[in-house]
């Protein structure tokens, strides 16, 4: 039983490594932890397109606010 579980975990790890590789090939900019969360979300049936949109929006938010801050500092 434990050996089966171990094998499963090993497989999962391998699959994750592969996905991480693809993610890097595609230059998504996700780190391992974030990717793990994303994969879990997808496994739970969240629409990937929407998720991607969300991530992009949040990144953009960060960018714009950082810019705002910079301009504020300059002012």
């Amino acid at each position, binding site marked *: 039983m434990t050996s089966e579980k171990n094998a*499963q975990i090993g*497989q*999962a790890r*391998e*699959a994750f490594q*592969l*996905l991480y*590789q*693809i*993610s890097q*090939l*595609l*230059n*998504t*900019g*996700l*780190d391992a*932890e*974030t990717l793990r*969360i*994303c*994969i*879990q*979300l*997808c*496994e*739970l*049936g*969240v*629409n*990937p*397109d*929407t*998720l*991607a*949109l*969300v*991530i*992009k*929006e*949040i*990144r953009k*938010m*960060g960018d714009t*606010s*950082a810019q*705002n*801050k910079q301009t504020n500092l300059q002012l």
Partner: protein
Amino acid sequence: MDNSNSNVPGLLNKLCERLTSKQESVKSAEAYELALSYMTSINERPLAEEKILCQKIHSHLSNISSKDADKFNECFSKLKNAFVLNQPVAVLSLLLALSESPQASNSTQQLFPLPNLNVDSSAVGFTGTASSSKSTVGTSWGLNTPKQQASSQSLPSNHSNMAIMTESCNHVNENACVRDAVLAATGVKPKPSCTLSRPVQILYSRIAHLGFLHDKLKEFIDPTSVFTPRGLMVEGLVAAVRDELTEYYRSVALLQSQVCENDCSGGTLRRVCVWAQDPLHRLTWLATIVHSVQDKRGGALASCVHRFVHHGDERIAALARRLLTALTYPLLLMLTRWLLHGEIDDPYGEFLIEKRNKVSIDRMWHDKYRVRDWMIPSFMSREQAAQILATGKSVVFMRKACANLPEQGEPGSESDHALHLQTLLAAHTRNGASGGGMEEESTGPAWWEAEGLREGLEMAHAVASQRLLAALTTHHHLLDHLAAHRRYLLLAQGDFVHHLMTLLQDELSKPATSLYVHNLTCTLEAAVRATNAQYEPPHVLARLHVNLYPNCDGREDSGWDVFALQYRVDGPLGTLFPATCAAQYRSLFTQLWRVKRIEYALHDAWRDHTILQKRLKGMPEVWSLMRRVSCLRAEALRLCGALQDASCEGAEPAWADLLAAAAEGHHLDKLLQLHHNALDRHSIHAMIHHTTQGRARSILANNLVPPLGTNLCVEINELQSYLGNVLNETLALRSFETTLHTGINAELERRERYEALKIERAARHEYAITAADEVQDKERRKIFNQFLASRKADLNVWARTYRGHVTTLILKLALHTEVSLQTLAFRLDYSDFYKRGDAKLHEPLTYQHKRLSEMGLHLAKTKLLDHMKKK
């Protein structure tokens, strides 16, 4: 796994925290709110199929590098075997959506759209919902970058009810039809499988039109077809068209595989039809271009395709540009070869420079090579073609004619010339390296539209002509020879000419048949030794010769008529001065020499006259006549002087231009043109008409003379005959004076004898005169008086004819279109002497008359033209 990890909101929260942890400015709560709102607001959409997704990722990666794409394939195949993930597709599509495309890479651009018949419903659905804000979607979604939208357009799905209905109705029917249509697109004629409904037929025929266009192109590139005239540039075009067709085949093959693969899922005729739009457009224009270049070769072909480069549609312009680059490649090779080595390798007669094999190498500069006007491609100007011609000619000239120059071995000179062609050569090697028709767009502008072409040509031309000119002036003394031409053939070296005239005076009065060139050559050498001409460099003196040109019409010529100086230019320079040029110099020399001789003769007459004058104290009856003769002689002398001045002064600025241009180092063609110009000015002012055909042609070619040229020639011809009349009359004055002087001399001697006899008789203390003597003396005096009377009458007649001729000449000069000749008319009659004598001359010098006469001239010209048209 703890609880927060298993549900969606918990995971989302965690995600937000992670994402915002790097950016202090954004609070994770805000992000979480945003995420939730997105999650709830956007409708769930079905996921894309695994295969399509895979293809997308693959194409995306292969855009960047093929290595990445291979890596992905490897990972993906492993992942497929893992079976751990429940939703691999979802994860992949997430990754793809998040992937950031690097800076738009345009290394490969597909000529034809890749067919994609499968319904990419997720993408389509999304574009459907967000079609109003397409641009923002395009930027936020990595997949739909504008570039990709342009190249591989995704096909619209047939979500409308109408389409579904038709699809379901004749599904089986249509599948066969689609297969047929795809076959038809490659020109295969399938058997009509079954009866089709009308709309389907229309769609079908639209796709099948591709087949028709394909067949046309196929016919063009078929090497056995007899329609197209072969040539290297045509072959270039054929190769380019073949490339295009290969691309087209690739596209069709993909389409076919997809049609065959999924029989039921969506390979409808409509989608094929949509796919066919782009190939249709491209093939149509290819066929148009190919049709328009029929029966054209070489430069004309290039010009024809070049027209399409200016087409407003960017796609067509790009297509034409690609074709043109491919087909001008042989031209570029020919061009570089000609510019660098002066060789023409043109088996099909397509190059813009033509070598005329019949012309011998002596006439190499002027006639051996020429520009084929109709072969100049439209992206080159005529001036550029002339430059290309001159550059190559210079190279040939340096090699053929100046082969023995020591400078030839200098290493820097040749490469210097090539240096300026670098841009051309760079384009050439680049195109050679890239080879295929695909990549050329990305390597910048092709050689024929590059800025460097014009500059490179200009610089290469400048360098080549500088080298040539330097070689000609330093080693072949071009300028010395030009100056010598002017000094000796145009009588600018006064002391030499005068001395030669004195020495030749007696010799040339003999009939032409008793003259020998070697005697005259001795006289010439004597004249050279005695004057400043002896300081000329030996290479000039060695070329100065005497020649006799006997007339062919069997007249009894005196030596004056046949004598001429000759300046022989040979070697490399000989090719620069064509025979027509020598002929022009000869006619100029003859004319100037004649005027000079008449002037000399009149001066001679004056000397006789002055000697005689002292003995005429006892002969008052001849005084009036002598005085009148001397007045007329002065008049004639002045006219001669004015004519000589005019013929030299008129050409003075042209010679000055020539020397200035030579000092500034202008190119050879320019110098030669200025030389011709100077000669022409001389001819006009000496009122010489030259009818040599080659000369007239070269004048027309150089555009030296406006369309009025032929008219001018006719008028000059007229003037020449009037001038001839005047000169003949002046010579008649000289012979008249000779007879007068002999008559007077004889009478003087008789009288002296008579006086002496009287003195002698007186000394012998005889009667000084007898009656018989007195009678005889009276008789003699009577005869002499009669002689004088008849001479006086002769002189009156002569004066009348002479003045008549001069008046006509002045009148013609005043009415001449050439302004400098009008001023010459004024100079010949500046004191209004002839004008007072002749009423005819009153009018022409006024403005009103000139205007009227110009109108008359214009009328006459139009009449002449009408007449010619009628003929």
